């Protein structure tokens, strides 16, 4: 790893460099805890903030938009034209956190793996440049809900980024994770790092790792219980009872992939076929024409979501758990059945059974 450094006061120059080639997305701070990813312009550039809580609305939408037009359909007198629409604009995300990088890694394996490749995702992903920011400030970058340590995705991503930044005091340590990243590091704003810088990075990281809550380190046991079907129906019901069926957890999840497809008529007589994020928390998710719904009760659907994320079968299939430990579901859930709480509930309930 050829490490480079850049002075803290120069770190935003990276954004200028990116803007020469890419449309740039970066994190900004709102009121209170609020933070968000937004397109960078010359007007808002000075407001970019690297040390803020990770935005609730994940950067997933820049590769897999909330609503995406797939094709336009024009029906003429005796001809129907179908024109697919692809987004080929090169995009860079500056300051994406390690959990969200892992989320994109999961989407890569899901949308591009298996028998069929999703071309809409593939085209966006190919022109995406990721500048990962390592979380190093407990209480600011790292919140109470964070459990990337337990999902093994952070606080410093090990792969899939093009560049990785870490604040080590007066300077940022920068490493490249791809050829494009290496190319980028040739710019004279980056200077060679010394052994002292690399040691400092390691020392800070090992200190930061101690700052996470400890109640979330039960993932592996939970994966085992869920995979073996050892979770009691009663436990799923309890989780289901707490779920308000709002779908919030799935909309903020960087690793959720479900979508629905809808035809919309536009004013000029054209039809646009769009895909929209969908949620397994919603009652109609599996309802078929005619009304039959194989997944009725809410605890069935909760079971479904956590099975999909935690069952060994799927982890093997996608080579990663569909949970990256970002903690967003825990932050937005009104019923307190986000991933960490569910992991804990399953672990406790199953422990009680074993103890009997």
């Amino acid at each position: 790893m050829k490490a480079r450094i850049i002075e803290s006061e120069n770190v935003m120059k990276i954004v200028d460099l990116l803007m020469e080639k890419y449309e740039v997305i970066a994190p900004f701070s709102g009121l209170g805890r609020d933070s968000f990813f937004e397109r960078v312009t010359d007007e808002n550039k000075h407001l970019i903030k690297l040390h803020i809580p990770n935005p609730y609305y994940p950067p997933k939408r820049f590769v897999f938009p909330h609503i995406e037009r797939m094709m336009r359909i024009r029906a003429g007198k005796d001809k129907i034209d179908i024109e697919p629409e692809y987004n080929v604009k090169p995009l860079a995300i500056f300051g994406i956190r390690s959990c969200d990088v892992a989320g994109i890694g999961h989407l890569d394996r899901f949308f591009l793996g298996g028998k069929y490749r999703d071309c809409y995702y593939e085209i966006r992903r190919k022109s995406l440049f990721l500048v990962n920011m390592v979380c190093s400030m407990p209480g600011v970058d790292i919140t109470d809900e964070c459990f990337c340590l337990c999902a093994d995705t952070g606080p410093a991503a090990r792969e899939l980024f093009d560049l990785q930044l870490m604040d080590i005091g007066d300077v940022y340590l920068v490493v490249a994770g791809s050829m494009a990243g290496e190319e980028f590091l040739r710019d004279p704003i980056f200077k060679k790092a010394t052994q002292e810088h690399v040691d400092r990075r390691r020392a800070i990281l090992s200190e930061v790792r101690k700052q996470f809550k400890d109640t979330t380190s039960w993932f592996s046991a939970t994966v085992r219980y869920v995979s073996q079907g050892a979770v009691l129906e009663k436990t799923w019901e309890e989780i289901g009872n707490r779920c308000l069926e709002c779908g919030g957890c799935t909309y903020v999840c960087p690793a959720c992939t479900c979508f629905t497809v809808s035809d919309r008529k536009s004013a000029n007589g054209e039809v646009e076929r769009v895909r929209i994020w969908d949620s397994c928390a919603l009652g109609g998710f599996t309802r078929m024409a005619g009304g039959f719904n194989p997944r009725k009760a809410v605890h069935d659907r909760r079971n479904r979501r956590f099975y999909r994320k935690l069952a060994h079968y799927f982890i093997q299939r996608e080579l990663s758990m569909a949970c990256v430990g970002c903690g967003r579901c825990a932050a937005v859930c009104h019923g307190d059945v986000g991933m960490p709480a569910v992991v804990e509930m399953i672990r406790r309930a199953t422990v009680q059974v074993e103890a009997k």
Partner: protein
Amino acid sequence: MNEKTEKNIYLPKIAILDRVVDEIKDVRTFYWHFEDPAEQEKFKRFLPGQFAQISIFGVGEFPASLPPSPTEKETFFTIRAVGTCTEALHRMKPGEKFGVRGPYGNGFPMDKYEGKNLVFVAGGIGLIPLRSCIIYAIENRDKYGKIQIFYGARTPAELMYRENLSQWEKQAGIECYLTVDRATDGWQGNVGVVGSLFKKPGVKVSVENTIAFVCGPPIMFRFVIKDLLEMGFSEDNIVSTLERYMKCGVGKCGHCCIGSAYVCVDGPVFTYRQIKKLGEDI
């Protein structure tokens, strides 16, 4: 057509509706062909038990099983008007255009079943997906052992594919038994659920070296499975095809995921042993 478009798994191909035939109440068969003959050629390599996604432009897309056997010349769908999309298809007239993409799913492994006896048990419109394998097996008669068909509907008027049924009843080397839940005027045949046919005098359901295909409404499915298991069928030799709400057909949209399977890519054909493990209502 550029390379990107070629690889777009969501892009429907234009199909033209040739003619429409009424089957039973609310169920019609739609004969169609692709506008592009090359597409027709490609599509015709489907397997019995596979399905396709039908697009009614401006309304939506839905999955439908393929009732024709790949050995038949014409391509068609048999569809019950039950929701927005299927109702829109029912309103279409010959000559009108819609979209089709596929075929998708695993299909029945008919080549693996060669040398075996085949028992088909269908209820109501459950005959639609099984029709494909029945015709396929008849066309390849020498590759299979005994062929037995058990089919039931609520009333005589609700028996599907009437022409095929009377042909199968007459055809040598095939046993075809029909039943209805409620007889109406003129019905001479059996009255009772499909399972009642198994115990009829003179009927001997083949069990040894036999594959049972089961498709029908959930209640029929449960009872028939019970009967077949009692007769001595192993769970691996009972196969069925599942239907689920689907948006993509290619394992991406997530709607048809049950247990550890995506019905669209891992199914829709599953053995009863697999279905039991999925853990959802059928």
